[in-house]
């Protein structure tokens, strides 16, 4: 093509093409480890360690996925993880929202202190709290019980949720609520009908974060739970490590299975989010 013409006619378009190309390269960078995880899971054992160039698998097998799927405890751990994570996320988002509203909307003594608390709580060294938290759960008689994990994940993600949601509430013009109140809504109704729908996306972003955190947590899940029937998925996943190392193929296949629920969760809340936005747009 003629560069002169191209430049003259379409500077914006060629810029856009370049941007898209860069974006695709970046996407490759982010997706590559995931691709490599799946590719490794699909390789037969004999191809796992080869000096041949195997960017594309030389041959493909489902054995590793079968190993992972049939490794004892997968479905049970999946169930445990789902219950623990969803309860913790639900609690963190609800309680976080309750706290976010006064922090963003109301004026009262000590408000600044509470905001600081949400910030400072996130500085706590999570791993270093293992022993005191363990002793606490022991004294509460919650050892080896799933509620202990729900409590911990809830508490750990709560400060982040409360603080982030506060930002989202802040961003919704108060005038909208006030207008609704003028129309005869009570304060609660105004909040529920106007602000809450607009908070959808914020709640999605926050809950995805909380979900990923709780879903991946290993140390507490390992230390607090002994009974195999109550273990969570990260602990199950660690079963692919022996003292001889990690079973690459099995662990990669299992990790792929492990990642799926996060994507599903994201897609579900994503749809809700879109509905929330639309609703908000209509009202606003």
């Amino acid at each position, binding site marked *: 093509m003629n560069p002169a013409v191209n430049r003259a006619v379409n500077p914006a378009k060629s810029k856009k093409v370049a941007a898209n190309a860069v974006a695709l390269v970046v996407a490759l960078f982010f997706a590559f480890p995931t691709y490599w995880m799946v590719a490794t899971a699909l390789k037969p*054992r*004999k191809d*796992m*360690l*080869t*000096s*041949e160039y195997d960017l594309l698998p030389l041959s493909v097998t489902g054995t590793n996925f079968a190993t992972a799927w049939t490794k*004892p*405890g997968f479905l049970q751990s999946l169930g445990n993880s789902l219950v623990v994570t969803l309860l913790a996320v639900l609690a963190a988002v609800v309680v976080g929202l309750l706290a976010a509203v006064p922090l963003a909307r109301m004026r009262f003594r000590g408000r600044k202190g509470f905001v600081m608390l949400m910030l400072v709580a996130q500085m706590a060294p999570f791993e270093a709290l*293992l*022993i005191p938290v*363990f*002793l606490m759960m*022991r004294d509460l008689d919650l*050892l080896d019980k799933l509620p202990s994990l729900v409590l911990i994940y809830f508490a750990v993600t709560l400060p982040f949720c409360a603080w982030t949601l506060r930002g989202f509430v802040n961003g919704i013009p108060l005038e909208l609520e006030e207008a609704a109140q003028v129309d005869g809504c009570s304060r609660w109704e105004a909040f529920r009908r106007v602000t809450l729908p607009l908070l959808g996306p914020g709640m999605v972003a926050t809950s995805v974060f909380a979900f990923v955190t709780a879903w991946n947590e*290993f*140390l507490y899940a*390992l*230390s*607090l739970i*002994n*009974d*195999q*029937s109550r273990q969570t998925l990260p*602990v199950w996943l*660690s*079963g692919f*490590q*022996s*003292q*001889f*190392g*990690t*079973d*690459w193929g099995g662990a990669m296949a299992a990790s792929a299975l492990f990642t799926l629920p996060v994507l599903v969760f994201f897609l579900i809340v994503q749809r809700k989010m879109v509905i929330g936005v639309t609703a908000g747009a209509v009202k606003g």
Partner: protein
Amino acid sequence: MAAGAAALAVAVAGCGTSSSGSDSGSGDGKTLTVWLMDGSAPAALTDALHKEFQDAHPGVTVKYEVQKWGGIQEKLTTALTSNTPPDVIELGNTQTAKFAAEETLEDLSGDVSALGGDQWLAGLKDSLTWDGKSYGMPFYASNRTVIYRTDLFEAAGITAAPTTRDEWVAAIEKLKAANAADPDFQALYLPGQSWYALLSFIWDEGGDVAKQDGSAWTGALDTPQAKAGLDFYKKLVDVSGTKAPKDTDEATPQQMEVFGTGKVGMMIGLPWELAGAVKANPDLASKTAAFPIPSKTAGKTAPVFLGGSNLAIPAGSQNTDLAKDYLKLLSSKKYQDMLAEGGSVPGTSTDTAKLATNPVGKALAESAPNGKVTPTTPTWAAVEAGQNPLKDMLTAYLTGAKSLDQATGDANAALTKTLAG
């Protein structure tokens, strides 16, 4: 971690509660909680053992929980502080001294003879003795041998398994020559940080990793003997042209997987690693054997690191007597034979006849009397659970990042510091 795993049949089918009874059970409804490591005891052994134990103790349920290797340090630490710790735990032999010295384990000195004490494996017995008292019962041990491919040896014209270092090196060269056409072939797979193999070479030179001075231990890696051991390690790496990474140990990637590809002549490993390789490549079963790690002195085998586990009863156990009964049953000949059959040196029986029935077990039994252990000091556990200076030393020297003197000097300083607690 020292321990080996004992299941040739690695299937961990019996995970979780292996008993049929419920928590409440009948009779006095007691529950004996037993923690063994993943892969330690063959399922056939634990199934039979728990059945016999429960039959002999009506109303008692054995709660058998297989522990995973990832995060075991945290798990043990927290479990010992709980109101209801497990009643029987498995501890690596290099780890036991730490738990004993901190008085977290029940003193079993009075029960030694009931637990078959006269037949305890010497290396393990030392590892569980602290201040003259016994804090556990030997479980099983194992040591590394050179696992090799009989078919490849034959094809390369090697008629007898090497018995000296020179023969070993010669065998490597013959294998290399015979398989020069295959770029993926490795005569010996030896990763840079296989430090248990290094221990053998250092001991064979008459050196040691650390020396005791009163109650204090200091590193001995800067001695001429230790340096000679390290040099031999480098020689093996150079001669064999192993493609193994120099910056990881035999776990990354798992050397048994590499051996399982069928393109490796030898590896220095444990019997269970061969089992893992066979699982990946069943053809290997009939084509493999093992010989003891050769010594520099003809007519001898090199000393080997005796890895293994002890069983102990946490001081906080609520069922000490039951736990002792459990250990007693496990120490009986029947179960010790099952351990030997599974491919490990049994802890409380000197009879290793069952072990010598397969070629790898035979080599294992041959070199086991020459087994040695790492320094029995409570602080050694931190060397393995933390940053192991021996591994850093190996990588630094093999990659040429440090000279022999510098590598050994640095590692020695780091080791001395860790051993001081």
